[in-house]
């Protein structure tokens, strides 16, 4: 049968090689 009602269907891509490395992964993350 049909799906339960949908909130979202997504394809979430991460392009790691395009990440900004101006601040290293080591900086505490304060968003």
């Amino acid at each position, binding site marked *: *049968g*049909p*799906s*339960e*009602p*949908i*909130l*979202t*269907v*997504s*394809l*979430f*891509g*991460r*392009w*790691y090689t*395009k*990440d*900004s490395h101006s*601040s290293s*992964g*080591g*900086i*505490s*993350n*304060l*968003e």
Partner: protein
Amino acid sequence: RDTFIAAVYEHAVLRPKDTETPVSRDDALLLMNKNIDILEKAIKQAAEQGAQIIVTPEDALYGWKFTRETIFPYLEDIPDPQVDWIPCRDPQRFGHTPIQTRLSCLAKNNSIYVLANIGDKKRCDSQDSTCPPNGYFQYNTNVVYDAKGQLVARYHKYHLYSEPQFDVPEKPELVTFDTTFGRFGIFTCFDILFHDPAVALVKDFHVDTILYPTAWMNVLPLLTAIEFHSAWAMGLRVNLLAANIHHVQQNMTGSGIYAPHLPRAYHYDMETDSGRLLLSEVDSRPRTSPAYPTAVGWSAYATTIKPFPVRKNTFSGFISRDAFNFTALFENAGNLTVCHKDLCCHLSYRMLRKEENEVYVLGAFTGLHGRRRREYWQVCTMLKCKTTNLTTCGQPVETALTRFDIFSLSGTFRTEYVFPEVLLTKVQLSPGKFEVLKDGRLVNKN
């Protein structure tokens, strides 16, 4: 063993009162032991039901709101697992380590692997310019004890998230350990958004199962815990045992046992303040299982078809701080394309019945995400808008009425790392009801 029983425990942590003055070591131990009292019941229960391994959440012994000074009484010096130490049998060997001893004894006495998240302190040389003023590096740390109580793994979290109380290790650590039921890798919470160590453990170290303690605050529409974690397991084709904190006021809930082809068990509860134990049987070596999904060419379909007609009334809207291009699903059925820069997203769909008070859009975003602009995202999403006003598209919404009997979503991704997410009304997953075709289309199974 071909399979094993995994357990994760979503823990409603008992937190200390907010204070700027460090508590005594005795008070810190008192609080941590109260939390371990609760974890102990879950560990015993898991072992009684045949679980070989249990994962408990990040920050499960003391919470998360600290300064470098106020966390200090909670820390212990955690040695390298190469020292072959069973704290339960030799508790004095590395100084005053009652928390490590108790965790080791819980593993040993219940004959079960136990993962716990605690704090590590490492004395450093004050002449070293990187050594903090108090003379210690302080790390957010996962430890694993085997069924004999031996410390077999220690991992220091790399990608910290608003954690001024902790230091960042010099490099991402790639921590694995082998068992009779597969090879395991470990990382923590926000680490999952980055290549190292998360992807490297799967691609370079060929782990079968990731142990994943987290204190994850849910953010709709793309980053609720159950949604993203189940998608990550599916995208990287690995088992993921995710244990989240349970703290409704901070939107923290959502734990699961995720296999590469579907979630085996998951839990999302914004109604109660209770913890929850999850158990499920999973494949020890999923790559050899008949259910192991084939590799996906994520842009294969989207780059070979002629794009559907792009509507004139494409509009811009935000998901969090990211500016997406959206186009609305005005008809009951159709084929749509929306692009943002060089990312084009295609959707074919048919609604069973279009609810008049609901609007859905197809959205595309490619670029550096959020205010920090560190992580490069490529996202295709079909989502329900908060209201019928199109300016609300991308804002969090938790319920929906519209059912689809067909959907097919694809995109011209330039990355091989794509995670397929499906979230149903009331923030629920859809195990076994959708699949990813090897040409990159995310489709329902009806």
